[in-house]
């Protein structure tokens, strides 16, 4: 039983294709992750699924309801915890929650119970009557999460739920999100650009890049699909023919150059490494750095997008996005 289904879902902003013919399904009770760098189209996808934006092309259903034609009904069954913090600074945590419960037509007495429950779940009981102005970033984010739960949504959309949180708070949030799914059977669609988050939390991950899904599977399958380990090598001035020789070695499956480093995919890293080193020395190549990388989501990401997600995090993501935009402008 799927709860979300998209069919060639597409959103254009002028000439920019933010989401590009994306098709996937999310099963009931699943934690499904959209992993991708800033500007990949994650928020735009969420905005379409939560009826904030109309698709330019394609369609999507949530809980069997068309997001465009039955938007009013969709709104009743989804909860959204947006990327940017939108709780009202001038009000207390409690007042924010009360307002939210009014917006979702939760009767007052029921609301009181649920607010108590949600606030304690996110650890804000003591701060409930303080003005949000005095909250830390993590507390605001948690309040935002509590708000998304007030009407017991069937599907909860979490847009970068741990963006900007410190490591401890992040782990607490992960715990909390898992409990939501386990105890309340809520289907969760989340976006993130943190590898660990996708790895730890998600039952299945879609890697999205430039508005397209480039891979979709369980974290384990994605890692297995790499088909082995990667040896990361830096050496200078290799000729094309030397690389070709490297590629023909028995254990080597593939050689790729990413930045300064060569990524050599091999079946058994520990055995292949000495042989490769020997060969390189024979070819009189000076070796800079060596590392053996076991399959990880980082590697998966690299494999499918040709970039390391580490390069695209935080501020660098912004720069990278601008560069991508320029590239697009140049053609």
């Amino acid at each position, binding site marked *: 039983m799927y709860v979300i289904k998209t069919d060639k879902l597409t959103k254009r902003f002028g000439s920019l294709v933010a989401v590009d013919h994306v098709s996937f399904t999310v099963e009931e009770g699943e934690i499904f992750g959209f992993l991708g760098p800033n500007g990949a189209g994650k928020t735009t996808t969420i905005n379409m699924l*939560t*009826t*904030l*934006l*109309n698709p330019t092309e394609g369609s999507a259903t949530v809980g069997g309801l068309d997001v465009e034609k039955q938007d*009013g009904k969709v*709104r*009743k069954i*989804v909860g*959204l915890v*947006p990327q*940017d*913090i*939108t709780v*009202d600074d*001038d*009000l207390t945590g409690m*007042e924010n929650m*009360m*307002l*939210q419960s*009014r*917006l*979702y*037509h939760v009767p007052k007495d029921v609301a009181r119970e649920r607010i108590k429950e949600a606030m304690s779940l996110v650890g804000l009981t003591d701060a409930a009557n303080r*003005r949000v102005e005095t909250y830390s970033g993590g507390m605001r984010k948690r309040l935002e999460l509590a708000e998304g739960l007030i009407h017991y949504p069937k599907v909860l959309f979490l847009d970068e739920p741990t963006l900007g949180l410190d490591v401890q708070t992040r782990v607490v949030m992960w715990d909390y999100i898992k409990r939501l799914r386990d105890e309340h059977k809520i289907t969760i669609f989340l976006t993130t650009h943190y590898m660990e988050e996708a790895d730890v939390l998600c039952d299945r991950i879609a890697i999205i890049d430039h508005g397209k899904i480039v891979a979709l599977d369980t974290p384990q399958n994605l890692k297995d699909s790499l088909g082995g380990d990667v040896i990361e090598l830096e050496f200078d001035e290799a000729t094309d023919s030397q690389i070709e020789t490297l590629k023909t070695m028995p254990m080597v499956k593939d050689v790729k150059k990413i930045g300064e480093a060569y990524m050599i995919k091999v079946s058994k890293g520990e055995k292949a490494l000495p042989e490769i080193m020997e060969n390189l020395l024979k070819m009189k190549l000076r070796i800079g750095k060596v590392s053996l990388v076991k399959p990880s989501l980082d590697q998966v990401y690299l494999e499918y997008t040709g970039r390391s997600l580490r390069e695209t995090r935080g501020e660098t993501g912004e720069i990278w996005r601008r560069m991508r935009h320029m590239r697009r402008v140049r053609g």
Partner: protein
Amino acid sequence: MIGETIALTRREIKKWLKNPFLLFMMLVQPVIWMGLFGKALNLSSFVSVPPEFLSQLPSELQAQVPDLLDQMLRETFGGTTDYFTFMAAGMLSVVVLFTAMFSGMSVVWDRRFGFLNKLLVAPIARGSIVLAKVLSSVIRSMIQVLLIFGLAFAFGLQVGNAFGVLDFLGVLVAVFLLSLGLTSLFLAVTMRIKSHETVIAVANLLNLPLTFASNALFPVGQMPPWLQTVASLNPISYAADAVRSFILHSNAGLDMAKIAVDFQFLIGFALIFSLIGILVARTGLRKG
């Protein structure tokens, strides 16, 4: 729809009350205006006749001159010879304008801070978002008008000798209609605006002409004809005129015909613009 509207209106009012500084600033500005403009101008000193001139007139005329001047002033200033009273009455309408403008601008903030998205993703009627903005602006306007009225009274507002509770209610109704129309007008303008800079520029652009091309601060009779035409289309003129008539209600009675014209205009303005405002705002809230 009703529950949501009330909840959202309460949010606006709460936010307002929790910012005493903002509330204070909203009061300080009109008070400064009233103090500086209103008290600076002493009308009777402008139109007095020098004694050496007066003494050359026949004695029966001499006695009539002050009365004549007084009458002239009352004619021009809608029934008062005290400029402070004249402009304080007008100030009440200007306060409504400022509050309406502020409410219009707050939509842009809500959009920028993502609060609007939170409302749009909730299963509520789109109209309640707009309605709550209008309602809260009207409530704020009324409260401010009450406070300013009290302050003006303390500073020497000279109400007419027949001024009573009914006149006071009349003032509130006029202010209410003006607030309804102006807030809707500003919401219609600001609903699609995305940036703070733009909305502030737009507000400033509308603010001055609406304030000064009206009879709120200066009598229209003195203005060049083109400005008089503008003022005669400006809802603030009608509200200020009605408010002034009520405040100056004297034993001579109210000019009901004039007040009827004022209210006809105000009711029309409030109705038309709240309809336009709600329609425009609803299309403004449509998703992209």
